[in-house]
């Protein structure tokens, strides 16, 4: 049997999406715990770092995925040619509201941002970053509720929604500037 480190590396190389340490340990063999997997992933990342490899194993969407180092972005973009269009400030704000307040109504998004959100919601749905998760049954017209998708986590390299600082924390981190009296 090849070393656990090699197997885990191979599985991560082959996998199309992020794989959890539980799944990895189940695939390998009995007697290998998720903790063992975490241990070798850490070792692999150290080796990649020391040897200046092109990639690292990142924790995203509840699992692990091999991803290139950020310094390589300009070269990778030249190869790929079709980078996704940058999301506008308005779209990012709508996305942030959905991420923190989900499941959320369009009206709630608009109340927080003070502007119509129809266009940005449609764009985010198109990009598969948010989805219609359900409907508010107790309101007239059963308005739709929006939530973020797994692709949202993958796109912004988030392990889970809990990886985001809470909105209350953010409110405190950025205190309003004090009034300069004179």
């Amino acid at each position, binding site marked *: 049997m090849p070393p656990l480190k090699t197997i885990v590396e191979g599985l991560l*190389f082959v996998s*199309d*999406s992020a794989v959890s340490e539980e799944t990895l340990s189940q695939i390998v063999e009995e007697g290998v715990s998720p903790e063992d997997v975490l241990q070798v992933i850490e070792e692999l990342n150290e080796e990649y770092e020391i040897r200046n490899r092109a990639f690292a194993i*990142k924790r995203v969407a509840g699992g692990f*995925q*091999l*991803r*290139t*180092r*950020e310094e*390589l*972005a300009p070269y*990778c*973009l030249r190869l*790929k040619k079709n*980078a*996704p269009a*940058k*999301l506008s*400030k*308005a779209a*990012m*704000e709508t*996305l*942030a*509201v959905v*991420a*923190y307040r989900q499941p959320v109504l369009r009206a709630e998004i608009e*109340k*927080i*941002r*003070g*502007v*119509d959100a129809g266009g940005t919601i449609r764009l985010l*749905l*198109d990009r*598969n970053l948010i*989805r*219609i998760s359900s409907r508010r049954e107790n309101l007239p017209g059963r308005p739709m509720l929006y939530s973020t998708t797994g692709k949202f986590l*993958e*796109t*912004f*390299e*988030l392990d889970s929604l809990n990886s*985001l*600082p809470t*909105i*209350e924390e*953010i*409110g405190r*981190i*950025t205190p*309003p*500037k*004090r*009034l*300069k009296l004179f």
Partner: protein
Amino acid sequence: MNAAHEDLNLKLEIYEGPLELLLHLIKRNEVDIHDIPVSLITAQYLEYIEYIESINLDLAGDFLVMAATLAHIKSKMLLPADSLEAGEQPEDPRLELVRPLLEYSAFQTAAENVSMRPQLNRDVFVRGGVGSETLDLPEDNQPESLMVAKSSVYELVKAWQDLYARRTAEGLSLKFSMETVTIGEKLVQIRAFLLSVKSAHFRDLAGLDKNNYELALNFLAVLELARTGFLRLYQDSDVDQSGPRLFLADPAAREAPEKLDYR
């Protein structure tokens, strides 16, 4: 010259909504959000609105609502508070403004934080392309190569809208016809079509209809066939393409295609 240039840039800034504009003014004046100098901010706010109107840009009604709110708060601050119990502190009229501003400000920061994270396919990349999945289909009907994305009803609705929009763009035809096609006939037609081609793009169905009514019937027939398991719908991961793909699903269904009657 440099200063004039800056001024121009500043003025060309377009604020999407009143809260964004107000926050900008508060930051620019370096004032405390909890102690907003209402007169100053209101004056600058109105100045911006006048400027936007002067260059003939449409102004969202929300901006005017906020202008009214500002004026209201300003007048409240000038007037003595209503009769209060002894020792009771009057509520600062600016609070109704501060709360939404603080909340919006927090979300602005949250959005910036998320934007700064390494973004997939922009800053970081994974091996190969998009995730693929094997299709849950009979073996003799597996496509040679197909990238399939997780999909939702939303995409199906979008595909329908695209189809309908294309149709409308090709020219609305007003036809009076005594022919009445039933959904049952459509079911048979689509079955026959799919049996011959095995898999088709949603858009290919456009060839099977004569008018919008039939297009709608087609759509319903596709949903019905998917429900009964005769065909399956998949979305190519390349979303911009031609909408969902229809696949023949159940070999048994091919044997007895005429069983259902929807008249």
